[in-house]
């Protein structure tokens, strides 16, 4: 089990008020912002930016970077790891 990915899912569920969702409902490669995936919206995207700052001390200022990072739990965890190595 990838602890970072599990923690991300718990943090997303809590911060975004995804009340009826469990960690096991979010596949690592599911598209976060697709209706066929997790179904997040634009306000959720802003909350993810706040989450990155609050939990990982990462500031996201480049929208293109954010678009790639926020695709799925896999890409988000990759992004966090790469930023933490810098």
């Amino acid at each position: 089990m990838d602890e970072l990915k599990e923690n991300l899912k718990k943090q997303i569920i809590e911060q975004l008020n995804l009340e009826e969702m469990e960690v096991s409902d979010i596949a690592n490669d599911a598209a976060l912002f697709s209706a066929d995936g997790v179904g997040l919206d634009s306000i959720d995207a802003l909350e993810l930016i706040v989450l990155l700052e609050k939990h990982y001390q990462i500031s996201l200022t480049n929208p293109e970077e954010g678009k790639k990072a926020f695709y799925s739990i896999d890409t988000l965890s990759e992004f966090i790891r790469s930023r933490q190595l810098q």
Partner: protein
Amino acid sequence: MNVKITSTVVIRPDACLVNGEIVLSFQENSDDGWFRQIYRFLQPDYPKFYKMDQLSQAAFLTVELLKKEAGNVLMTSSEESVALIFANRESSSVTDSLFIDSYQRNGSPSPSLFVYTLPNILLGELSIRNKWYGENIFAVFPKFALDYYEKNARILLDDQVTVILCGWVNVTEGKQEILVFTIENEPVDDAWNQLMVQRSGFEFTA
């Protein structure tokens, strides 16, 4: 002659009433809060409910109750045929306070709270849920005023707009005043509407 109130829904702390009749009572021994109990009773399958603030949740639940228990006119209406006229006293003050807390205590403002720091957002939530794209108005008044709804309803009702969904939805810490009613273009004498509001079970606090 006046336009006619045709149905009422009230959420009180102890019960939900449709046209003055109790359809659901608060369960003290439940682990769920009152709004969650109502949501589970209705089973609307709408997870976005949990992202809403209390004001939007109150309006959402009242309209879902109306649709479930007495909503024939709403269920058959087209996108433009429903207009929304709402009002309250305290605007979005509870959410405003939570938003201030989010940056004063937690250091960062919450986007998901910010979007609810205007009371008329509940009209957006109702419109999105029900695909109602007609006219909508939200006013902040010192007290409930039936003639505000009647006068605006008379202006809006025509061949295209066939039902007005009206609401007084006021939420403060520990206190809620929630009344939703429909108005249609049927002539009725003035006393009828006063009686419908009195019989709805709504408890006036001001």
